[in-house]
C-alpha cells in the first residue's frame, strides 16, 4: 500500500475513533436502562435529538454557546428522565414486558412528531466558531469538533466509572442490575434507583445529542438513526461492560467515517447499519459479551 493511500486513510480513521467515543456515550444510556430495568427504551434516540434541538434553540434565540448550555440542558434532562420513570414507566413494569416497551415507543413517536411540528423537516446544525475549525497539520487535517467529542466522551466515561465503582449510588445501581430482590434486602429503594438510572440515561442521551449536533446536521428522523446507532454500539460491543460499549462505539464510528471515505455521503449510514446487522447475525452477544 502506497504512503499516499495510508495517509489518506489516517484522517477518517482518527475521526472514526474520536466519533466512536461519542457513540459509546449514547450506547451507555441504552445499556444502563436495559441492564437495570430490563427495559428497551425506544425513545432513547429521541432524547439524544432532544439535546440537539434544545441546544439549537438556546443558540439561535439567546446565542448561548452549546458547551455552556450543557449547564442548563443536563440537569433538565436528568429531571425529565427521573420524572418520566417515577410517574409513568414505574407503574408499567408489573404489567409485563410489552407495556413499558410500547410506551417508550409512544414517547418516541410523540417526541419525533413534536420535533417535526416545531422545527420542520429541514436539517439543523449547531454552528459555532469552533465547530467549523480544523485541527491537525498538513495532510492530516480533520474537523476540530471530533476532538471535543472525544474529550466529552472521555469525561463522561470517567464520571460513569467513578459513579459505578466508587460510590454507594453506583453500587446500588450494580446491585439492582444483578438482583433487585437482594438489593431491596439491604435497604436499597429500587424505585428510586430506577428513577436515577433513567435520569442518568437521558442525561447521557442529551449530552451526546449536543455534541452530535455540533458534529453533524440533524433532522427529526435522526431520532431513529441514533436509536439504531446506540443499539448497534451495544450489539457490537456487548452488553454489560463499559469497555465493550466503548469498543462498540469505536467500531461504529470507524464504520461511518470509513464508509463516507469510500462510498460517499449517501452510503455512510448504510455501511454502519450493515456492520450492526452482520454482528447481529454472526455474534449477537457482541465482542466482549457473554452468551446468555
Amino acid at each position, binding site marked *: 500500500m502506497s504512503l499516499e493511500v495510508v495517509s489518506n486513510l489516517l484522517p477518517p480513521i482518527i475521526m472514526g475513533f474520536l466519533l466512536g467515543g461519542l457513540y459509546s456515550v449514547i450506547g451507555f444510556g441504552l445499556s444502563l436502562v436495559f441492564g437495570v430495568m430490563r427495559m*428497551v427504551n425506544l425513545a432513547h434516540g429521541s432524547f439524544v435529538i432532544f439535546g440537539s434541538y434544545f441546544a439549537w434553540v438556546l443558540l439561535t434565540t439567546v446565542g448561548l454557546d452549546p458547551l455552556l448550555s450543557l449547564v442548563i440542558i443536563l440537569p433538565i434532562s436528568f429531571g425529565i428522565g427521573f420524572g418520566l420513570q417515577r410517574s409513568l414507566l414505574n407503574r408499567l413494569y408489573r404489567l409485563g414486558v*410489552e407495556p413499558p416497551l410500547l410506551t417508550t415507543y*409512544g*414517547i418516541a*413517536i*410523540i417526541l419525533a*412528531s413534536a420535533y417535526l411540528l416545531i422545527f420542520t423537516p429541514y436539517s439543523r446544525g449547531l454552528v459555532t466558531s469552533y465547530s467549523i475549525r480544523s485541527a491537525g497539520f498538513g495532510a492530516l487535517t480533520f474537523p476540530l469538533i471530533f476532538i471535543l467529542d472525544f474529550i466529552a466522551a472521555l469525561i463522561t466515561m470517567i464520571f460513569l466509572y467513578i459513579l459505578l465503582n466508587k460510590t454507594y449510588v453506583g453500587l446500588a445501581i450494580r446491585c439492582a442490575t444483578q438482583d433487585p430482590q437482594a438489593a431491596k434486602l439491604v435497604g436499597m429503594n429500587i424505585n428510586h434507583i430506577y428513577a436515577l438510572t433513567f435520569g442518568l440515561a437521558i442525561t447521557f442521551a442529551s449530552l451526546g445529542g449536543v455534541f452530535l449536533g455540533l458534529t453533524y446536521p440533524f433532522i427529526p428522523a435522526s431520532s431513529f438513526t441514533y436509536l439504531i446507532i446506540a443499539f448497534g454500539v451495544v450489539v457490537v460491543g456487548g452488553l454489560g461492560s463499559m469497555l465493550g460499549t466503548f469498543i462498540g462505539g469505536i467500531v461504529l464510528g470507524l464504520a461511518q467515517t470509513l464508509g463516507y471515505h469510500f462510498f460517499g455521503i*449517501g452510503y455512510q449510514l448504510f455501511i454502519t*447499519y450493515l456492520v450492526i446487522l452482520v454482528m*447481529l447475525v454472526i455474534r449477537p452477544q457482541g465482542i466482549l459479551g457473554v452468551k446468555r
Partner: protein
Amino acid sequence: MSKKIRATKFLLPLICLIALIILPLSGIPWYYFHVLFIFFTYLILAEMWNLLAGYCGLISLGQPAFIGLAGYMLAISLYYGLSLPLSLLVSYLTVVAFAIVISVPVFRLRGFYFVIGTWMIPEVIRLWFNNWRPTGEVLIGVGGGAGFRVFAGLTPQTLYYIALVAGFVTIVLKRYILTSKLGVGLMAIRDDERAAESCGINVLRCKFYVFVIAALLTGVAGTIFYLFQGHIEPTNAFSIYWTNIMLIAVILGGIGTEAGPIIGAAIVVILEQLLAAYGELSQIILGVLLIVIIVTMPRGILGTIYKVQIHKTLLKKLAATS
C-alpha cells in the same frame, strides 16, 4: 351452538359484506369510499400485526419493510412493462422470498435484540432505495421516488373493490388460520409459550408460518395502497408511520383478541380523518392515545370487555355454588 347464535354469527358479517359491495351504487360521495379504502388497508395491516405480536409474541417493528418492498417491486415491474397481475405477482413473490430469507437471522434474536433488530430492516432497505436507481433516470419525486403508470380501467371504484376483496380475504384467512391446527398452536403460544413447546407444538415453525403469511399480506396491503397513491418514495414507503398504525390499531382494539384489529383499525381511520387538518399534531395525539390506552386499558377495548365478562361469569358461578 344454538341456531339463533349461529344465525347472528354468520348473518351479521354477511349483511355487512353485501352492504359494502352494493355501496358504490348508492351514489355516496367518493370521500367515504376513500375512507373505507384506507380502512381496509389498515385492517389488513392490523390483522397481521395482531397475529405476529398478539398471538406469537413477535413484536415486529419491521413490517414497513414489506410494505415498501412490495410497493417498489410493483413500481419497477410496471415500469418495465409487465402487466398489472404479473407485477403484483412479482411483488408478492419478492416479499415472500425476502421474508423467508430474513426469518433465519431474525428468529435467532430475542427480546431487546428482536425489537430493534426488526426496526433496523426497513431502515436499511430505505437507505438502499435512497441511492438505488433501478429505473434509470426516469424518476419523479425526491431521491429514489418513482411514479406509476396511470391505468385505464383502474378507477377509484375498482380500487375500492380490490381493497374490499383483500380485506375480506384477510379476515377469512385469519379465521381459517385460527381454527386450523396452526391456530390452536398459536393460541397456546399466546397463552404460554414454554408450556406450548412442552406440549409438542413446534413453536418455531408456527412463528415462521405466521411471519411469512404476515409479510405477504402486509405486502398486499402495501401494493393496494401504492396502486391508489400512484407514486412511491423511500421515506414514506418504509416509514414508521406504518408501524404506528398497526400498533395503535391493535393495542386499541385489544391485542391477542380476534375482533380487536377490526375495531382498532376503524377507530384509527376515523381519528386520522378527524385530525387530518392538524398534520403532525395528529401523530402526537395518536402517540398520547397509545400511552393512555396502555396505562388505563392495556388489554385494549375488546380485551377489557372480555376480562370483565369473564369476571362476571366467574362471580355468577361462584354465587351459584356457594
